[in-house]
C-alpha cells in the first residue's frame, strides 16, 4: 500500500557522506532540505504498527499508482538518476518544482516538470535558485494498462554522483481489478476566456504575431489544456463571454444582421476550437482514449446571440431562436451529440452589465429571466434533437427556492457547498428528477495538507451528487516560481519556462486524480456490498466521520428570505462540516485508498 512506502523509505547509504535515494508515498511532500513539509507532517508515520509488514504499491488496471522519489546529496554536486522500468507498465517521471511562497520563507513542491530517464542534473538545481537545496523530489506515475498481467512488477531506480551510488527497488503489485472507465464524480476545472493563454505562452504568441489567437498553435494550446485535465480524470471549462456580454471570437460563431436577418455568418474559429473537442479527436493518443468532452459552455448570454437592445421585444426572440436553431442544426449535422452544451448565465448585476443576476441568484424576482430563457431554448431546439442542450444555473443564496421554482427548466445545478450542505432533500429532489448536480469551491493552497484536495470528490460522492467545480484552475499568479501565491486558483502551470509549450501538471492534480480513480473503483463494488456500507467506511477512514456528518442541519435562517441573510450567518450555519474538514491530514485519503485496495484484492 502507498502508506507503507513511508516505512519502505530506503536510506541505502550508511554513512553521512553517501547519496540517498528515498521513496515517499504520494501524500508526503518534501521540502528542498528533504524533510516533510509542515502541512503534511501530521500525516506522516501514523500507522507505525503496519510498518513492519513489508508491502508494495498496489494498483488496479487502467489506473495509476504514484510515489515520490527523493534524491539527496550530502554535498553540492552533479548526479544522475536512472530507472529500469518494468515491462508492461508505463512510467512517467516529473521533477518537482519548489515554489518560493510569497511573504513566507518556505518552499512547497507543486509544479511537475516532465523529465526523461536517465536524468542528469545537480544539487542545488540551478533554475530553482535555492542555495541550500539538499534534496530533489521526483513524482513517479506508474500507469497500469488494461492488458497488464496481474502480479508483481519492479521499478529499479539508481542514483549516481560523486558520492557512493544508491539504488532502490519499488515493487508494484498489479491487481486483477480494473478501474472503471467512467468516473462517479466529474471534477471540473474552470477558467475564463483565453487571453491568459497569450500571457502564459509569450514565446508562442510572439512567434505567431498578431494572428496568434487565430493560429493553430493557439487552438493546440486550448486542446492541450483539455487533454491534461482529461488525462487526470477531470473536465475543463472555458467560459467564453464577459459580464456585460462580450463574446470571444473563438467561443462563438460570427454573426451578421439584425432582427429577422440575424444569422450565423462564419463557423471557422468556433469549429477549429470545438470540433476536435466535440468529436474527441483532440484526445487521440491519450491513455484514456479519444472521446468527446462531456460538457462545454455555450456562448449564450443576455447580449448574445440576441442583442439586449431588443430584450422584451419581438426581435429578441427572433434573434435568439434563429441563431440557436442554426447552432442546433450545425451540431446535429456534425454529429456533435455527445457533449452537454450548457446554456449558462455568469453575470451579476453588481457588474452593471445587466439588471439581473445570472450567477448565484439572491433576488427571487430574477428567476423570471430563467423561465424566459427556458422558453426560448425550448422554442429553438426541437424536442427530438439528438444535440444535448442543458440549462445550467450556479446557485447559492436562493438555491432551495430556485430549485423548486425552476424545476423542469434548469437541469444542471452548480451549488455553493456551504448552502447545499443544509439541503440534502434539495439535492435528492434534483437528482431524482434527473438533473445534474455539482458543487463548487476552489483548489486548496499548497500550504494545506496534501489530501485536502481529495475532500471534494469524496464529498460529492458521499452526497450522492454528480460532481464538483474548481472555480479557477489556470491562474498561478504573476510569478508562481519565485513569488508564489499558494496556488488557490491553479492546478496546472505553463511549461514554457522549461521549454514545454503546453501546460504541466501539479502534485495536487495528481493526488486528486488518484482519489477520483479510487472512487470510481470503490463505487463499482456496490454490486457486491451495500452502497451505504461503502460510503460509511470511506467516511470513517477519511476522518472518522459518518456520511451524515458531511451535511449541516438546516438552519432557522433558511426560512427567511435569502435577501436578509448575511455571510456571517451562512458561515456559522456551515460550521459543522467546516470543523469536520479542518481535521483532514495528509494521510486521510491514503486510508480510503487502503480500503479500496482491500476490496480490489478479492477481484479475480
Amino acid at each position, binding site marked *: 500500500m502507498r502508506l507503507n512506502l513511508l516505512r519502505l523509505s530506503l536510506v541505502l547509504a550508511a554513512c553521512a557522506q553517501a547519496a540517498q535515494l528515498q521513496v515517499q508515498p504520494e501524500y508526503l511532500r518534501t521540502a528542498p532540505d528533504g524533510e516533510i513539509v509542515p502541512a503534511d507532517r501530521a500525516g506522516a508515520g501514523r500507522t507505525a504498527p503496519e510498518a513492519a509488514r513489508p508491502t508494495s504499491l498496489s494498483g488496479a488496471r487502467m489506473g495509476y499508482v504514484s510515489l515520490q522519489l527523493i534524491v539527496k546529496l550530502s554535498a553540492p554536486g552533479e548526479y544522475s538518476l536512472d530507472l529500469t522500468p518494468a515491462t508492461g507498465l508505463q512510467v512517467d517521471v516529473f521533477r518537482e518544482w519548489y515554489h518560493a511562497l510569497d511573504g513566507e520563507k518556505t518552499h512547497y513542491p507543486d509544479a511537475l516538470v516532465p523529465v526523461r530517464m536517465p536524468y542528469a542534473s545537480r544539487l542545488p538545481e540551478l533554475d530553482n535558485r535555492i542555495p541550500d537545496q539538499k534534496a530533489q523530489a521526483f513524482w513517479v506515475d506508474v500507469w497500469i494498462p488494461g492488458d497488464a498481467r496481474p502480479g508483481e512488477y519492479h521499478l529499479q531506480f539508481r542514483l549516481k554522483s560523486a558520492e557512493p551510488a544508491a539504488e532502490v527497488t519499488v515493487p508494484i503489485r498489479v491487481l486483477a481489478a480494473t478501474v472503471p472507465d467512467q468516473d462517479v464524480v466529474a471534477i471540473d476545472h474552470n477558467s475564463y476566456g483565453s487571453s491568459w493563454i497569450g500571457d502564459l505562452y509569450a514565446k508562442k504568441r510572439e512567434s505567431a504575431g498578431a494572428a496568434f489567437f487565430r493560429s493553430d498553435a493557439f487552438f493546440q494550446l486550448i486542446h492541450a489544456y483539455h487533454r491534461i485535465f482529461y488525462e487526470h480524470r477531470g473536465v475543463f471549462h472555458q467560459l467564453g463571454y464577459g459580464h456585460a456580454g462580450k463574446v470571444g471570437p473563438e467561443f462563438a460563431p460570427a454573426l451578421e444582421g439584425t432582427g429577422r436577418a440575424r444569422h450565423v455568418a462564419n463557423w471557422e474559429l468556433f469549429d477549429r476550437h470545438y470540433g476536435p473537442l466535440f468529436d474527441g479527436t483532440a484526445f487521440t493518443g491519450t491513455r484514456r482514449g479519444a472521446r468527446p468532452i462531456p460538457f462545454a459552455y455555450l456562448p449564450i448570454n443576455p447580449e448574445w446571440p440576441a442583442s439586449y437592445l431588443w430584450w422584451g421585444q419581438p426581435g429578441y426572440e427572433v434573434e435568439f431562436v434563429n441563431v440557436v436553431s442554426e447552432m442546433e442544426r450545425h451540431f446535429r449535422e456534425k454529429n456533435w451529440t455527445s457533449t452537454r452544451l450548457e446554456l449558462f448565465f455568469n453575470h451579476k448585476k453588481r*457588474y452593471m452589465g445587466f439588471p439581473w443576476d445570472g450567477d448565484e441568484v439572491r433576488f427571487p424576482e430574477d428567476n423570471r429571466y430563467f423561465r424566459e430563457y427556458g422558453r426560448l431554448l425550448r422554442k429553438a431546439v426541437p424536442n427530438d434533437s439528438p444535440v444535448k442542450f442543458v440549462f445550467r444555473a450556479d446557485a447559492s443564496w436562493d438555491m432551495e427556492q430556485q430549485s423548486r421554482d425552476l424545476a423542469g427548466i434548469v437541469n444542471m445545478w452548480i451549488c455553493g457547498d456551504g448552502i447545499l450542505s443544509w439541503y440534502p432533500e434539495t439535492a435528492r429532489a434534483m437528482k431524482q428528477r434527473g438533473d445534474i448536480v455539482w458543487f463548487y469551491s476552489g483548489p486548496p493552497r499548497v500550504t494545506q495538507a496534501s489530501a485536502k484536495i481529495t475532500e471534494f470528490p469524496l464529498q460529492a460522492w458521499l452526497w450522492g451528487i454528480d460532481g464538483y467545480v474548481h472555480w479557477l484552475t489556470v491562474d498561478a499568479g504573476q510569478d508562481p516560481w519565485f513569488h508564489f501565491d499558494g496556488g488557490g486558483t491553479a492546478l496546472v502551470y505553463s511549461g514554457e519556462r522549461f521549454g514545454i509549450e503546453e501546460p504541466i501538471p501539479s502534485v495536487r492534480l495528481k493526488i486528486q486524480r488518484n482519489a477520483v480513480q479510487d472512487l470510481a473503483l470503490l463505487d463499482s463494488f456496490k454490486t457486491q456490498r451495500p452502497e451505504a456500507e461503502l460510503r460509511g467506511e470511506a467516511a470513517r477512514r477519511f476522518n472518522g466521520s459518518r456520511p451524515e456528518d458531511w451535511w449541516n442541519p438546516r438552519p432557522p435562517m433558511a426560512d427567511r428570505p435569502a*435577501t436578509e441573510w448575511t455571510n456571517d450567518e451562512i458561515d456559522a450555519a456551515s460550521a459543522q462540516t467546516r470543523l469536520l474538514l479542518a481535521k483532514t491530514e495528509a494521510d486521510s485519503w491514503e486510508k480510503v485508498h487502503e480500503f479500496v485496495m482491500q476490496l480490489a484484492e478479492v477481484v479475480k
Partner: protein
Amino acid sequence: MTPGRMKAILLAWLAVSAVPAANDSFIRELDDAARVATVMVDGDVCRKIVTPRAMDYLLRNDPKDPFLAGDNYEVNYDAFDSVKKTLIRLSRLVSFPADANLWMPVPGHPDKIRVVIRNVNELSQFWPWGALYQNMIPEMKTVLDTGQRVTVAKKPGWVSVLAPVSDSLGDIVAVVEVASQRKLDPQGNVK
C-alpha cells in the same frame, strides 16, 4: 465665477487640449455620440435605476463581510433597461466598436462616483474592475460642475468623451462616458 467653477473649466480645457486635434474622426465620432447622449438620456430615469436599499448598502464597510454591498446590489429592471437601451443605441452611432457607460455621483458623497450601466465591450478608461463606487474622477467632476463635454485620452490608444445628463429640473445628475480603443483586443474582457 467661483474659484471651484474656474478650476473645473480649466480642467476641462486641459483634458480637451490633451487629445489630438478635433479633425481626428475617431474622436469626432465619439464626441458626436456623446453630444447626442446629453439630449437622449433621461436623468429622471437614471435616478431610479439603483434601488434605495442598494444605495443604503453601497458605502457600508463590514470588515467581516467584504461582499456586503455587492451582495445587496440591485436595480429597478425597467429603469435600467430603458437607459441601457438608449446607451446601446448611442454606441451604434459610432462606426467602430464603442461603449456608452452611465456614471452617477453618490448622493451625500461629492468625492465619490459610481458606474451604473456598462455595455458589451466593457470599454472604460475609469472603472477598476468590480468597483461599486470609486473616488471622484476629476474630469467627471468637471462635467457635473460645468455641463461641458470633456474628452479624455489618459490611457494610450483610448478615448472617452464625457457628456452631462440632466433631469427635468435641469440639474446635472449623471455622466455618459462614450469610450473606445483605437486598437481593440478581441480577447480582452472575456472573463
